[in-house]
C-alpha cells in the first residue's frame, strides 16, 4: 500500500523557484529557494551570505577607534545604533566614561536614525505590497532626517558619528531648534501615514492574519526588537537592560495587540513600527529638552586604549537588540569582535512561516520582518 502513495514532491507538481540574489524585493542581496505549487509555497529556504564582508575580522585588524567607520556598514540603514554598540562595548572593555552631553547626543542621533530606518521599513513594505506612493512620501521625511544628521555629523548614510568616549561633534548652532521644528512637522504626519496606509482596507487584507508569529515562537527563534514586540512580548533593551541616558527618559514600549487580526501578524509588525515612531519622537523631545542642562563636554578622548579582557554591549537598534562582544588582549586591536544582529535571526523564521503562504505573501513577510541584507551577513 505504501508504494502506491507517492508524495507530492514525487508527483512533479512542485516547482523550484529561485528568488534572488537579484530580486526587487529581497531588500539587498538575499536569495530564497522557493518550492511552490503554483502560487502556494511549500517552503522558502533562505540562503544568506551574498553580502558577507568579514566585518568581524576587519575589527581584529583595525584599532578600536579605527573600526568605528566599519560599524556603519554593519547596518547602513540604521548606522548610528551600530556605532553606539561598538562604542559602548569598547567603553565597557576599557572602562571609559562618556560625558552626559555625549550620551544625550548619542540618544538623539540614535532615535533620529531609528525613525529614518523605520521610514525605509514601512515605505518598502508598502511598496512590496504594491503601493508605490507611500514609499515616496515616507522617503521625503527621511530626507529631512538625513539633512539634520548631515548637519550633525557631515554624512547622510554612514555617519561615523559616535566615538569611543563620546561623540565626534557637538550640535551645530540652531540645530536643536531645527530638530524641534522637524518634530513639530513630523508628529501630525504620522497620523497621515496611518490614514494612507495602515488603515487602508487592501493593506489590511494583505497583511492581517498573515504569518502569525506567537510570543513563544518569536522568543524561541530569537526575534528581537519590533518583530518580537509585535508578537506581544514586552521587551525593549532601552527599558529592560537600560543603557546611556534612557533611564532618565519616559517612553512606552508598544507591543502588538492584534488590532486587525491575530497578535503577531504582519500588520502588527507594521503597526508596532508606526507606534515606535511616536515613542521615538517623545524621546527626542525629552532629550532635546534635557540636553540644555548638560555640561558642554561631549567627548572624553581615551589617551591610551589597550584594554584587556572582554565585554559586551546591547543596544536597541531599529531592527532590535544588537549585541557586540569584544575581547582585547592588551593590544591596540581587538582580539575578537562579534556582532549579533536582528535581521539574521529573523531570517530563520521565514522558512517556517512561509509554508502555505502565497508567493506574494513571502514578499510581505520579508518586508514585515524589516530585513536588511548587510545586517544579516556583516
Amino acid at each position, binding site marked *: 500500500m505504501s508504494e502506491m502513495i507517492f508524495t507530492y514532491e514525487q508527483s512533479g507538481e512542485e516547482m523550484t523557484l529561485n528568488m534572488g540574489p537579484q*530580486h526587487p524585493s529581497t531588500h539587498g542581496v538575499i536569495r530564497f529557494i522557493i518550492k511552490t505549487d503554483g*502560487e502556494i509555497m511549500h517552503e522558502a529556504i533562505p540562503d544568506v551570505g551574498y553580502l558577507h564582508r568579514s566585518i568581524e575580522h576587519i575589527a581584529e585588524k583595525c584599532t578600536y577607534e579605527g573600526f568605528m567607520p566599519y560599524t556603519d556598514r554593519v547596518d547602513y540603514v540604521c548606522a548610528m545604533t551600530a556605532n553606539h554598540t561598538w562604542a559602548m562595548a569598547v567603553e565597557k572593555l576599557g572602562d571609559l566614561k562618556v560625558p552626559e552631553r555625549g550620551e544625550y547626543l548619542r540618544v538623539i542621533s540614535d532615535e533620529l536614525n531609528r525613525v529614518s530606518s523605520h521610514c525605509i521599513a514601512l515605505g518598502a513594505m508598502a511598496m512590496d505590497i*504594491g503601493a508605490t506612493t507611500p514609499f515616496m512620501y515616507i522617503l521625503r521625511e527621511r530626507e529631512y532626517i538625513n539633512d539634520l544628521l548631515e548637519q550633525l555629523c557631515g554624512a547622510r548614510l554612514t555617519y561615523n558619528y559616535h566615538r569611543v568616549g563620546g561623540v565626534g561633534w557637538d550640535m551645530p548652532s540652531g540645530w536643536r531648534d531645527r530638530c524641534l521644528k522637524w518634530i513639530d512637522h513630523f508628529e501630525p504626519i504620522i497620523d497621515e501615514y496611518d490614514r494612507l496606509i495602515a488603515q487602508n482596507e487592501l493593506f489590511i487584507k494583505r497583511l492581517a492574519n498573515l504569518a502569525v508569529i506567537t510570543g513563544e515562537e518569536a522568543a524561541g527563534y530569537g526575534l528581537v526588537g519590533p518583530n518580537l514586540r509585535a508578537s506581544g512580548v514586552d521587551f525593549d533593551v532601552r527599558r529592560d537592560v537600560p543603557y546611556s541616558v534612557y533611564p532618565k527618559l519616559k517612553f512606552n514600549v508598544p507591543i502588538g495587540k492584534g488590532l486587525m487580526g491575530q497578535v503577531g501578524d504582519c500588520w502588527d509588525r507594521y503597526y508596532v513600527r508606526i507606534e515606535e515612531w511616536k515613542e521615538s519622537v517623545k524621546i527626542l523631545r525629552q532629550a532635546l529638552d534635557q540636553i540644555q542642562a548638560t555640561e558642554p563636554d561631549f567627548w572624553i578622548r581615551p589617551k591610551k586604549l589597550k584594554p584587556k579582557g572582554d565585554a559586551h554591549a546591547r543596544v536597541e537598534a531599529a531592527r532590535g537588540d544588537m549585541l557586540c562582544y569584544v575581547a582585547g588582549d592588551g593590544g591596540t586591536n581587538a582580539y575578537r569582535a562579534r556582532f549579533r544582529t536582528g535581521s539574521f535571526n529573523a531570517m530563520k523564521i521565514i522558512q517556517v512561516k512561509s509554508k502555505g503562504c502565497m508567493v506574494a505573501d513571502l514578499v510581505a513577510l520579508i518586508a514585515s520582518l524589516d530585513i536588511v541584507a548587510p545586517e544579516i551577513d556583516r
Partner: protein
Amino acid sequence: MKCRCHRFLPLLLLAASCGGSAAPSAPIRDLRPTQIERGDKITVEAANSLFTVGAPTTIILNDIHTDGGSAVTIPGRAVGRTRVLFDADERLEKQIGVHLIDVPTTVTVEQEVQGQKLRYTSSPTDKFKLDLFPRSLRRMADRAASKVSGGTIWSWLGLTVEEMPGVGLRITDIVARIDKDDLFRAYETAPIDGRITAQEARIGQPGGMDAAEFARLDHNHNQVLEAADIEELPEEDGVAAQAGLRRGDVIVSAGGKPTQRTADFAAAWETDEPEVAVKAKRPAAGNAWTDVTVSLPRYGKPSGIPDWVIWALFMMLAAAIVALPVPVIGGLVVVWERKISAYMQSRIGPNRVGPAGWLQWLADGLKLLMKEDVIPTDADPILFRISPYLAFVGVFLVFMVLPFSGWLIVADLNIGLLFLLSVTSLVVVSIIMGGWSSNSKWSLLGGMRSAAQIISYELPASVALLSIATQTGSLSTVSIVRAQGGMPWDWYLFNSPFTFCAFFIYFISALAEGNRTPFDLPEAESELVAGYFTEYSGFRFSLFPLVEWVNVFVIGAVTSMLFLGGWNIPGVSAQQQDANGWLQAVGFGIFLVKIIALIFVIIWVRWTLPRFRVDQMMNLCWKYFIPISFACFLGTLMWAWLLPQAVQYGLRFAWFILLGLGPLVLFVKRVQYNRSRYRDLNLQQAQFS
C-alpha cells in the same frame, strides 16, 4: 409590452450562441422603391450570402409597429439633409440618405431557387436591417481600383463581379456614365415630391443620363444625390457599361466559352479576334431572364497592377489611418501617467524631451527600438516572437468599434460589444504565450496569474455590458451612444440604480482585465520581477507597456461610451449632431474629455492603492462581482419591464441627484477637508536645514 421586447435582443442572441443573429440582420443592397409600407413587396437586386444571389427575391414588411412615435434609431452615418421620419400612422416614409436602416418589424424574405421556395422570417423582437447603399470599405476599394487605369481586365472594363456557381458571373457593380452636373441641375428643378422625369434627366440626349441609369434612379434621385456616393462615382465611362451591360446581369459566356469563374472570363481576352462576344442573362419581371449579347473590344486591354494589389494597398492605408494614432495615444498616456504620478509623489517627472517633457515617450520608444532584441536560448523562438504582436492586435482592433463621434467610426458592427469583448481576449493569449515561451518561471507565474485574472474578470465585465445592451436593444456601439443623451441624467450611468452598479462592476473589471493596480498581479514587480515580459527586450518589450497604456485609453473610451453618454452634446439631439460636421467635432471633443477624466481616475487609483493577492483577486471576482453583476443584469431587466417608461425617465433625474451629485458633494467636501489638513502640515514650506 411588445415594443419593449426588442431590448432583450442581445440576450436572445447570446442564448442562441450568436449563430442565429445572421439571418435577420443580413444587409440587402440597393433597395427600391423608397416608400415602404405595410405589405409592400420589395425587389432585391443584390444580396449577400444569406440569399442565393441572382435568384428573384421578394421581401415583405409584415407588420410595422411603432415605438410610440419616436424616431427610428439609425446606426451608421447619416449624410447631408437627411431626415428620417417614422410616422405614427404605421407608415414608414424615408427619404433615404442613410445606408443602414433598422426596420422595426418582422420581415419576410422569399426566394425561389431552382424551383424550390425558400422563406425566411425575421424574429418579431428583432430589428431588420436594410443596407441600402453599402458604404463599405470594400466598395470604396473596388471603386478606387477600377478608377486606376492600368488595372486588370476588370477595372478596365469597369466591372465588379461575383461568381455564381453553376450559372456564371454576376455583375455586382459597373462603372456607368453619369453626368453629375445634370443630375444636380435636375435635382434643383425637381418638384418637391422628389420625382424626376425622363425629360428632366434628358435621356438619350447628349450629356444626359442613359436609360439604364434613369431606371435605377427614377424613384429616388434624392437618395443618390444626398448619399454623397455620387461624388465618388467615376467620371470616365466604363467599357462594359457603354457596351450595354448592367448591374445584376449574369455573364454566362465570353468568346464562346462558358464563364464559370472569373479566370474564364479573363482568359477569353487571350485571343486574336478584335472583339469578344459576351453573353449575359438579365433578370426580368417574375422569375424570367432575358438574354443579352454584347461585344467588348479586345484591343486596349491594359496590363499592370492587379486590382487586388490596389485593394490591399487601400485597406492598408485605411488600417494605417486607424492604427497610427494609437501608439501616439499610448505614448501620451504614458507621459501623462508619469506626470500625474510625479505630482502625487512630490516629484517633477519627465520634463526634458519636447515641450514640458511631452515627447518623452518618443525618446523612450526610439531607445527601445535601437536595443538588441534578445531571445533567451531556451525560449520557444516562434511563440516568443509572436506574443507581442498578438497583444498589440488585440488592443488595436478595439479601435475598430470605438465611436469617436457619429461619423468617426471605422466600422459600426452590429455585434460591436461582442467584437470588443472577443478581441480584448486576444491579449490574454499573448500574455500566456509570452509567459510560457520565455522559459522563465517568473514569466510563467505572471502568465498564469493573468490567465486566471483576465478570464475571470471578463465575466462580470460582459454581464455588466449586457445590462447596458438590454437597455439599448443593440450591440452596436453607435446605437448605444445614440440611445443616451448629452445631459448626465440621460446617461446609462443614472438609468437605474442597477446600471449605476453595473458601471462600477464594469470599470473595476476593466481595470483587472487591463492589469492595472490594484490588479497588476501579472506584472507585480515586487513579486515577479516584471511578470510575463521579464525576458523581453528591445522593441518586443516596448509593445507590452504600449498595449497596457493604450488599454487604459480603451477602458476610458468604452466606459464613457457605455455609461457616460459618449459623444452626445448636452441639449443637442443625436439627429442634429449627425447632420452637422461642427457638432460632430464638438462631440468628439466631449468624448475625449470624458476619456481623459476616466484615464485620470485610473492613474489616480494606480498610484494610491496596494495590490491584491491572487486569492483575494479571485474571491473578489467569483464571490462578489459575478453575483452582483448578474443581480444588476436581472435588476435592469426588471426595471425596464415593470416600470412605465415615463416613471423611468422621471426617476433618472432622481438618481442623478441621489447617486451622482450626492457623492460628488461628499467627495468635494472630503477633498476640502484633506486640503485643509494638508495646509496645516505645511509640507511645501518644510525646511529644516
